[in-house]
């Protein structure tokens, strides 16, 4: 209530100004970032040895090598295809889920809510194993002969299953601050149920849809465990490929490939942030 004081509230427990707390924070940030930075730096190391202990000069050879590695590039293309397809369906399914849970009262609602959030909380290995068994039992297992991109369908189905609940969560959060009176106002002015949805609800949901899309995309691109169990013999994704390379031997090429994926993640984060800022500016 005191405007002047609120401009610079000095809180009694300003932990962020204590040097000991800052030290914990900084050390933790080093802990979080140092391995990734070392990984990126040593992707430019001119050394054939794995483990990358000693700096032997700058080179981009391993990037060239990574780009020339056909299997790796195919895995990358697979990953992007899977992520794009899974994202489209996840956002659609997530939006439907968010709307029906947000809007309606129906019997067994807590059960439905629990079911929708269950794929988020159960250990991924359980989901991976059960989907693998499901595909094999249903005879949906892709073989080496299945043409691209149909051979990715199992992985895409699996990715949708674990990422649409996240999308629904994000979209529902957005819906929660929708003012129902807007809908009533539109109806009062003569809009039909469908027009209300198209003209009022959908524009309100848009930032949520975009956030959900970015989240689904990242989740799909990141997934290793579930893909590892549901992928067929010839359907290797980027993380699965890196995993098999790591198991085989540690080379700077893996660092280069990893750096590419990190770069992609950074780019997505940047887009998300820019979009968010745009939305904030628009709202002002």
């Amino acid at each position, binding site marked *: *209530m*005191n*405007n*002047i*004081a609120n*401009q*610079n509230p*000095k809180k*009694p427990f300003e932990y962020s100004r204590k040097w000991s707390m800052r030290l914990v924070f900084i050390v933790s940030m080093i802990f979080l970032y140092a391995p990734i930075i070392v990984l990126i730096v040593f992707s430019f190391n001119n050394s054939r040895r794995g483990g990358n202990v000693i700096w032997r000069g700058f080179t981009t050879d391993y990037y060239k090598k990574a780009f020339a590695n056909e299997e790796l590039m195919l895995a990358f293309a697979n990953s992007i295809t899977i992520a794009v397809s899974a994202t489209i369906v996840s956002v659609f399914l997530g939006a439907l889920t968010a709307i029906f849970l947000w809007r309606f009262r129906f019997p067994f609602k807590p059960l439905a809510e629990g079911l929708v959030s269950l794929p988020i909380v159960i250990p991924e290995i359980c989901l991976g194993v059960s989907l693998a068994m499901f595909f094999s039992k249903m005879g949906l297992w892709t073989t080496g002969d299945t043409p691209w991109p149909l051979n990715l369908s199992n992985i895409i189905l699996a990715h949708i299953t674990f990422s649409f609940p996240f999308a629904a969560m994000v979209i529902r959060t957005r819906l929660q601050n929708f003012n129902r009176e807007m809908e009533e106002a539109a109806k009062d002015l003569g809009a039909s149920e469908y027009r209300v949805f198209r003209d009022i609800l959908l524009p309100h949901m848009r930032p949520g849809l975009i956030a959900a899309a970015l989240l689904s995309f990242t989740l799909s691109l990141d997934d290793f465990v579930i893909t590892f169990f549901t992928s067929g013999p010839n359907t290797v994704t980027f993380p699965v490929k890196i995993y098999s390379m790591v198991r085989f031997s540690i080379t700077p090429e893996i660092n280069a490939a990893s750096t590419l994926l990190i770069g992609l993640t950074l780019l997505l984060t940047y887009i998300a942030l820019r979009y968010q800022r745009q939305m904030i500016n628009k709202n002002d």
Partner: protein
Amino acid sequence: MISLITPEPILSLTNIGKSFGNVDALDGVSVDIREGEIFALLGPSGCGKSTLLRIISGFETPTRGELKLDGQDMTRTPPNKRPVNMVFQSYAVFPHMSVADNVAYGLKMEGVGSDDIQHRVDTALSQVHLEDFKHRMPDQLSGGQKQRVALARALVKKPRVLLLDEPLSALDAKLRDAMRLELVKLQETVGVTFIIVTHDQSEALAMADRVAVLESGRLRQVDTPSGLYQRPVDAFVADFIGRVHSFTALHIEHANAEAVVQVAELGEIRLAMDALPSGVRAGAQTDVPAIIAFRPESVAVSLAADSPSTASNDIVLPGVLGDIAFQGQHSIVEVTRGNRPSVTATINHSSLASLQQQPIGTPVIARCARADLMLLPAELGHDTEQAQ
């Protein structure tokens, strides 16, 4: 100053200032608070009263100035080492502790023995009439009951000064009036000095022994409620405590215990006064504006037709009858004056009868006795001394 006769102040603030970046939240605040009084810090929101309260409690450190409690410098003492306790605006009753645990918390922190704690908690709870709620959890209490817990929790520490931040703002209207009286009674029982922060002038006037009016981080006036009402030091205080009608003074001369003021609309007004009020200077009122003000309570309204011969001592404002708003004990009568600002009068029911029968637009005369006029500076000069 009359400090020779008043007892040693329990809390004394000297030239307190607080800046947040380039903004001065408080500037040059000096005030002495006496033992056992209820002292109110009154002002509109953003005036700095909360900051001042937080400086007294120790949550903020002033940028300038000194704070003494019982003669000891406490400017930089942390809040947990000050014999001062606070009732928060949100009450801040710990939700994970029972009522008794909340009240006992401060004593535990002091290291008081558990038998003693038991006893003191019971006493404090009975003081606020919550004996039967000892084992309840806060979410089972109403807002008013939570406030009592917060009160008991602070009082059980036997603070030298109890701070109350907007104590009645979260209560509904009926409870508010009851709690006003109860707080005053409680203060009389425990004898602890109370400092109450409020933006509600009626609250301050009803409860406090003395009131400090703050505006834009500066202390405008410290006085008793009746002193503030009858002798406001400037236009801001006059308007903040009650309402006033004001007219700009154009020129002021002062001689022979008499001020001759040229006033817009009202012409020449002669006021008996030994000296001009502080902040008001003689001469043309261009750069140091002053006003002539009077309160609606001092205005009488009569029909122009049966108006007595104009007594030369009154201010007379002719106009026509406007709306009459019924207010219970009295009514507010509006006298409209063409395109000039209208004047309102607070009139009791016996004098209202003759007006009530008249249609809107009947010519009337509003008058105010010369003795009820106040000559005030429109803005308080920085060099002004405090009243009292």
